[in-house]
Each structure stands twice: as C-alpha cells, then as structure tokens.
C-alpha cells in the first residue's frame, strides 16, 4: 500500500503530504488536546509555580464538578451537574428536532429530478451561512425579542394578549441552535438519499407499500449512515456551542460550555476549565457511541 502511494505521488510529493498531514494531526489536534488532558489533573497554580515543588497530580478538578468546592456542605455540586445534564438533554432535543425537520427536506432534495431547481434550493440553504454566527444569533434575538417580529405578529392578530418571553423560555436558544446546524444535518442525509435508486421506491409502491412503510423499510435504512453522521455532528456541535447560548440563552439558564468559558476566562483557572471540557467531550463520545450501538451503525458508515 505504501509503495503504491509513493508510486502515485512521487517521493517529494508523497513525503510532503505525509509531513503536512502528520503536522496537522499531531501538532494541531493531538498535542493541544493532550496538553489540556494533562493540565486537567493539576492544581490551580500561578504560572511561576507550575512544575515546581507545589505542583502535583490530582483529581481535585474532576471532584469539583461532582462534589463542589472543598468543604461544600451540600455534598454535591448541584448547580454545575444540573447545567451539565441539561446541556446534554437539550443538545439531544435539538438533534432530534433537526432530524425531524431535515429528513423531509433531504428526501425531497435527494429524490427530485431536475438539477437546476434543486441547486437553487441548496444555494438558498447555504447563503444564510455566509453571515457569521454571532450576527445570526443576534438576528434571532431580534426575531424572538419581546418586541420582535414574532411577538408583534402574534399581537397584531390578537393571538396573544401579552408578548411571550421567548428568550427566558429558552425557545430562542433552541431555535437558534437548531437553525445553526441544519445544514450539517441536511447534507449528509441528502448525499446518501440522492444515491438511492428511485426504482426501489417505485418497486415498493408497486407492491402496495404506503408512503410511511417505504420510508421505514427502504429509505431510512438506506439513509442510516447519513442520518447518523448528521446527528453526531449536530449533537456534538450543539453540546459544544458557545455563541448561541451566550446570546440567546435566558438569564437563568447556563450552557455547560459557558461554565467552561467562565473557568478559562473569568476564573483564569485553566486546569479546572480543562477538566470540565474533557468531561463534556467524554460524555458526548459515550452518548454517541451508545446510540450508534443501539441503532447498529458502524463507525465506517459515518465517514460515508
């Protein structure tokens, strides 16, 4: 295999590519993450003391998430744990919501003949993403604000008497998160469904299958790799989102990433922040792998 690779690319190009990929993987991904991982087992020390006699390995930072600060009477760090669990549940809800919303769109795009029309629709989906994330989040704030478009509209037609506080109810947040990752859900599904042979759908129709059965038995099993890759991305990214929760989140609700951010930034406690971030990553991985096992999806399918 290696021989083949060098024969195809030549020695200079071959080594060049390997070095670049190696640099990317090791220097930009593995080393920083490993550093964070290592850092999470250290006590919070001022920089001059790091690596000094006062430095040692400890599980203190992880304990803090579960039990709170030392000497905490409650026994558990209820606030942070609640935020952690709520973040995961909310991210799962956003994922399911996106899946339900995007599957019909992906199916329609994937199975509609006549490329021009579909290409325009895809373009219409993509163009809003040229606007940066923060601007989009603020736009949602305006839409969902107390005197925002939606409230004005509902008031105008007397559907409601008082404006609804979408921000406090976190509706703006979920809508913003859902919207932010729609494309990541649509495209993997669209790619797979596009390659589904239309004759299979017609064959099933010919044999009398109603539409829901065609989806259950033919389209969804076929689209499973796309569905799982879309869901994985949306779940991971919404659990790890920061901008949308900062801007759209209600005053009383925190996203777990905001806690991480606070430790890094306001607290200046990097080891503590690193431990929180690693717990979030580990939890996300466990959830994704469990769900994949449950639905019998292989890791290789996701790359499809």
């Amino acid at each position: 295999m290696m021989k083949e690779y060098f024969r195809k690319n030549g020695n200079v190009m071959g080594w060049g590519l390997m070095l670049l990929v190696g640099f990317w993987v090791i220097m930009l991904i593995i080393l920083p993450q490993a550093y964070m991982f290592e850092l999470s087992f250290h006590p919070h020390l001022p920089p001059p003391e790091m690596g000094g006699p006062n430095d040692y390995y400890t599980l203190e930072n992880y304990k803090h998430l579960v039990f709170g600060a030392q000497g905490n009477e409650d026994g558990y760090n209820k606030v942070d744990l609640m935020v952690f669990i709520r973040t995961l549940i909310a991210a799962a809800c956003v994922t399911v919501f996106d899946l339900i919303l995007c599957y019909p769109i992906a199916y329609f795009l994937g199975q509609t003949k006549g490329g021009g029309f579909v290409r325009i629709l895809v373009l219409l989906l993509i163009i809003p993403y040229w606007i940066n994330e923060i601007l989009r989040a603020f736009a949602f704030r305006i839409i969902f604000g107390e005197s925002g478009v939606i409230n004005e509209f509902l008031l105008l037609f007397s559907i409601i008497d008082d404006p609804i506080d979408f921000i406090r109810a976190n509706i703006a947040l979920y809508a913003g998160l859902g919207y932010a990752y729609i494309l990541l859900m649509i495209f993997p599904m669209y790619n797979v469904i596009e390659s589904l042979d239309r004759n299979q759908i017609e064959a099933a129709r010919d044999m009398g299958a109603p539409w829901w059965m065609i989806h259950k038995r033919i389209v969804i099993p076929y689209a499973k790799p796309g569905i799982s890759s879309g869901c994985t991305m949306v779940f991971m990214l919404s659990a790890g989102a920061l901008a949308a929760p900062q801007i759209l989140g209600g005053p009383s609700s925190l996203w777990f990433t905001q806690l991480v951010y606070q430790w890094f930034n306001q607290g200046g406690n990097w080891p503590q922040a690193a431990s929180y971030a690693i717990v979030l990553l580990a939890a996300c991985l466990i959830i994704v792998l469990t769900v994949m096992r449950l639905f019998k999806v292989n890791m290789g399918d996701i790359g499809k």
Partner: protein
Amino acid sequence: MSSGVGVDLQDVWIRFGDFVAVREANVNIKGGEFFSFLGPSGCGKTTILRAVSGFLEPSEGNVLIGGNNMAGKGPNERPTALIFQNLALFPLMKIWENITFSMEVRGASAAERRKRADELLDMIALPGQGDKLPSELSGGQKQRVAIARALCAEPDVLLLDEPLSALDLKLRQHMRTELREIQQRVGITFIYITHDQGEALTMSDSVAVMKAGVIDQIADGKSIYDDPATAFVASFVGENNMFRGKIKSIDKDGMAIVDTNRTGALLARVSTDAASHLKVGDDAMMFIRPEALDIAPDTKSANTRIKADVRHSEFEGQSYNVFLEGSEGKEMKMALTNRGKARLYEPGVSLTLEYDPLQAVVVPAGELASE
C-alpha cells in the same frame, strides 16, 4: 394462481409536454399470453409499460386490465407486478424479505412469509438462499429473485422492463428459456419490453414492434420476421436486403413485380398487412433476407434472379456471409450454409443469385431502422 387476465390499450396517447411518446396505441393482449413490445431505445415501449403498471396515466385513451378500466388507479391498486430493468432489489433486506415484501405490506406474519419465501425459492431453484443479501448473489440469481418477488404478490399480469439487459450473453440466452418456462408454469400474462429481437422472437406468443411512439405491427414472431407490415419492421427485425422501386403490377395472388431502381424488375409477395392499400405505381420497398438468397444453377436471367459480384465473405463456421455488389453498386448480403463451396465466395467471382418470390416481401416505401 389466477390466469387469463387480458390487457387492452384503447386509443392510448401519452404526451410529455409537446413530445408524443405514444401515439394512438391499440393493443389487445390475451390472458395468459407472453406479449413483447420490441423497439429501439426511445420508441415509447417503457412508457407503455409504465402506463399499464400505473406509474403514469395516459394523456388520452384507456388501459383495461381484465376488462376493468384502470383510470385513476395507482400502481398498488392494479393487479400487476413490475420487474425493473435494474431489478431494484432492496439491498439491505435479506432475500426472503425481498421476495415477500408484498406480504409484509399486507401485514402477513413472519412465519407465513418465511414459508412462502421457501416455496418461491424452490420454484426459482435457489433453495436455502433466503438468508443471503442480494449482493451475495450472482446476476442470474438476482434475476430469479426479482421474478419471485414479483410473483409473490400473485399478480394477474407480470410486467418486465428489459430485465435481461444487464446479464452477459450466455446467461441471457439461458434466462430466456427459463422465463418462458416460468410463464408457462404460472400461466399468467407476461408483458415484456425489449430492444433485443432475439428475446422477443424466442419467448413471445405475440410481438408488437414499435417505432417512435407508433406500433407498426402486432403479430406472432414468425409473421413479424417473414411477413413484416412496414419497411421499419422489415429492417429492424433481423437482417434484410432492401430494394427500392415502384410497383409495376400485382396479380390476384398478391404477387407483385417491383421495378427496382438499380436491380431491374423483381418478383415478390405483397405483405399481408399492405395488400389492401398497395397499388400499381406506388413507391415500394422489397426485402429479401440474406438466407433467402441462393446461387442459381445457371446464369439465365429471370425476375427472381439478381446478378452480383462477390466483394468479400466471412466464414462463420456453419455458414458463410457473402457480401456482394450488384448493378450500380447495389450492396447485398447473402448467408449460405457451409457446404464446402468456399471458392465460389472469393472476391471478384460473378454470381447469379436466385430466390423464392414467396420469401421476398413488398411493403410501402417508408422509414428504415437506423443501424
């Protein structure tokens, strides 16, 4: 299984915008018949099949199955099952699930389905293969699974859209026999779409030859080959030598003398379908099959004889294909059984050819099939 359900197309027109895909099709397919639509690609034969299966509605006219008008009925409401050109087996379902999908739709239990699948697998000579996936089967096996899947729904009419086109030659020939056998065993109506005349002629009770949306002729295979109705049918089905000319005379037995442009006056039989409307003086085309030509015992002239020079010949084992040039460069082909007269077919040899006028057919001048 039910049998004897016929299919009728009455004045069926199918248009896509301005394009007429099928023009005034009138077809009567008898119950239990193996009926083929034969034509080059793009002639509208698949469109007709889709109109019978219910995937599209004719723009005008009616499709009747077993005497019932199918207007407004979807594919799932018609007693038809369609076998797709690419078979469209469900790749993620096991073979037995594929075969019994129509039962699953109706809510049959897994045990019932399993039993039926085993019966059908026995019928298509693939016993014990039910737990495999389609990708684990060979082309011919997949073919048979597609047939079993279609038959599982117990349709009155089985529609086949060039199902053999993906197979290699040997397997295709084998599957012809097999399809014919299955049709006779289950006794239901088969409607078969193909551009391969060999398939149409070997398997069918009746063949409809189509050209650009128009059905030129409906007849049994032998009549299609020996008694073509139009120039298109004569040139599309099998090989043929065509002579263009005007009709000089027609006698009461339907034998015509055609004054051909380059080969002189030739005697031939007027095609049965054309007999009523061909008149003396009409532009006509005369066709003689390569195998109907033979070498005359002497060099006398007659209106069943053609003089030509050998240009080259191909040796095919059981026969020679001799390519000849007649007067004014008229090209002809003759197929002769190998009886050891090889020197006669050497380039440059002048021959006098003769033919049986009953084996030469006259039809009105018309469009030929493009090669």
